[in-house]
């Protein structure tokens, strides 16, 4: 598609995006609330979104499905006050809805499998009902303008202007970074066009391409995005991405997962933790040395063969000759 058409499409989406923004007040309320049983907090929303990402990845869904699901979730949460115990049902129904409009029929995971893998306690019919509620409240048909929409457009624009640089700016990497940002609720407060532009810019800065930086500037001007707004979100994006890219591994929250095994495996799990009945016999214990036994002499060092280290009886019939040959294979490495 030529550059002109792309820019036009960009403009169109920019005008549309306001319809798909979550309500600012509702979202801010969640973003600022402290964890408590009565209402959804930022922490529990973020944890749920991470779960959605796990499921997306596990079932091989596209990033598009994920981004759309998060968009639906945030819009719904900003609009309706729901109890934390319903959050998993809401988030899963958003994912399922997003998958239904994005993924191919054959790749769609049935809802009961979704619930089983997600280790949720509600039923498939609960899920269906919740989907209807969400769709109705959001007036969702099958489409939403999200940060991913812009990211794709920006990427194509950048490429169409510098065709030889196809390899340097990886769309996949940008998508992964977008995903990392969306796992934090603050980024849902940004306008998708701005967030996507901030991501694009940091990707361009990372590959140090002056040309593409110009293109990004051009896009900013075309959409009339304020410098201050872009700067604000660029900073936040930078911080988020430096956490994401840090080589340090964080300790996973282990308790949330259920580990179910079959009965047979469960029976055999701790069968070895038996306390031995026989009391320990200390070596050379009770004050008496073992020097009476000539076998102990000259044993403590080196690669001695089994026979010589075990005393003068080694030549006896209980150490048959052919076992000497075996010893070659058993040499201590």
């Amino acid at each position, binding site marked *: 598609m030529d550059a002109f058409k792309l820019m036009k499409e960009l403009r169109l989406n920019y005008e549309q995006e306001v319809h798909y923004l979550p309500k600012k007040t509702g979202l801010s309320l969640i973003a600022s609330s402290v964890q408590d049983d009565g209402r959804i907090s930022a922490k529990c929303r973020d944890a749920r979104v991470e779960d959605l990402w796990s499921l997306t990845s596990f079932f091989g869904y596209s990033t598009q499905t994920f981004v759309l699901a998060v968009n639906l979730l945030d819009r719904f949460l900003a609009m309706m006050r729901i109890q934390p115990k319903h959050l998993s049902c809401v988030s899963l129904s958003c994912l399922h809805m997003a998958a239904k409009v994005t993924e191919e029929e054959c790749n769609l995971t049935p809802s009961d499998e979704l619930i089983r893998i997600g280790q949720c306690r509600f039923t498939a019919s609960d899920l269906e009902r919740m989907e209807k509620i969400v769709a109705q409240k959001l007036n969702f048909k099958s489409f939403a303008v999200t940060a991913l929409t812009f990211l794709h457009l920006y990427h194509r624009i950048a490429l169409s202007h510098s065709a030889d640089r196809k390899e340097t700016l990886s769309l996949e990497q940008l998508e992964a970074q977008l995903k990392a940002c969306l796992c934090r609720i603050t980024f849902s407060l940004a306008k998708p066009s701005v967030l996507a532009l901030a991501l694009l810019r940091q990707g361009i800065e990372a590959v140090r391409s002056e040309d593409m930086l110009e293109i990004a500037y051009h896009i900013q001007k075309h959409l009339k995005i304020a410098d201050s707004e872009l700067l604000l979100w660029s900073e936040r994006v930078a911080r988020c991405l430096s956490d994401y890219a840090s080589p340090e*591994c964080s300790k996973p929250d282990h308790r949330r997962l259920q580990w179910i095994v079959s009965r047979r495996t469960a029976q055999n799990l701790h069968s070895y933790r038996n306390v031995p009945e026989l009391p320990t016999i200390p070596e050379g214990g009770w004050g008496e040395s073992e020097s009476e036994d000539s076998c102990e002499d000259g044993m403590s060092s080196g690669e001695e063969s089994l026979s010589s280290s075990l005393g003068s009886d080694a030549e006896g019939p209980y150490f048959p000759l052919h076992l000497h040959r075996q010893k070659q294979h058993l040499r201590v490495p």
Partner: protein
Amino acid sequence: MPPSSPSSPTTGFLVPSAEKVDGFPRRSMRRARQRRSHSSSQFRYQSSQVELTPLPLLKDAPVAELHDLFCKKLQQCCVMFDFLDCVADLKGKEIKRAALNELVESVATSRGVLIEPLYPEAIKMISVNIFRTLPPSENPEFDPEEDEPLEASWPHLQLVYEFFLRFLESPDFQPSMAKRYVDQKFVLQRAHVQLLELFDSEDPREREYLKTILHRVYGKLLGLRAYIRKQINNIFLRFIYETEHFNGVAELLEILGSIINGFALPLKAEHKQFLVRVLIPLHTARSLSIFHAQLAYCVVQFMEKDATVTEYIIRGLLKYWPKTCTQKEVMFLGEIEEILDVIEPSQFIRIQEPLFKQIAACISSPHFQVAERALYFWNNEYILSLIEENCQVILPLVFATLYRVSKEHWNQTIVSLIYNVLKTFMEMNSKLFDDLTASYKVEKQKELKRDRERAELWRGLEEHQERRMQMLTEAARNQRNLQERGERG
């Protein structure tokens, strides 16, 4: 009845073929077989069978006569009886049984009973009774886990063992005196059945006594320790490399466990060699399930004593990893978990690569128990912390397997467990995870492309073949036409 298969020469008990499954007699049939008591094959019938006369009770004896009476009773108990014949010598058997009982009581409760002259008599009585050739197994399909043949002379034998044990544990017991009679020959002697050989008894009650007795002997008679260790070595080596038969492996290992637990540091080279040359190869035995718990305990004890043996242990287990026996594989995995539970992080790093390659292979096993057991490692907090510290190395090793198996495995529990493992990794290091996902997808695309190209190639070849065939048939037809015209014209 149809004759039994040539591979199972049962002694006069033919198994009808209907009772066989795949040519092997069913388990239920085997259990239903009459439990045969074992003969103590070396009971010695004195040519002139000594008649036992009942002696006065020990508790009634005046102090001056006590030791003499004790000695006489010991000598009485040296007379052996035939228990296969249930009705023979009932009176004599009862006299001996009562005498043995009294001797046990006396040693257990009274002080000052054990004086020096009694030692040789006591040891003689014990030797005469217990050192007998164990009969060869009458049941060639003896399944150690199911069949429990019982020693016929147990009514006397048990009391002899009990006496031996109380004798060893008596506060009056003097090792310096005993060692003259409980010597190397007592433990093991060529062409005789002595203490260690008795561990091959099929009667678990006998082995239980022997285990405790040998434990006490080892503990109290320091001069015998090296000899005992060496002979146990030999028994194990014979078991591993020659006979694959010995009923007392578990009991001996239990004793060894208490010995290993008491090793002084630094560990002697002899002990480390024992670990590498005997304990690790023991894992290859077919009957591993009988003694695996005790073996695993010994292995873990070694690690707790000296962390530097860890690498030997794990590389050894990997070398002997079962390739066709899934029951063993599950056991190995259990042992690996126990080892990892106590491993030092610096040692873990040295073996993590080969270990996790094997774990990945287990995860992709079609046998669900193997896959489950391997995946369950991620539920162990300490192992998880080790993985987390070395995520960069470990995740790439298992990633592709996890993904592939999640799509292909038939078992739903496994699929759930894999999700848990993947999610755990994702939380540990999302960037690494995303990178691996991306490269996995790229690989998959390449694979698909290769498959398409291969299919194209074959299609091209087939088309080419078709065209050739067409040309040939055309040519043949033209040839015929020419011929016909030639004939006509």
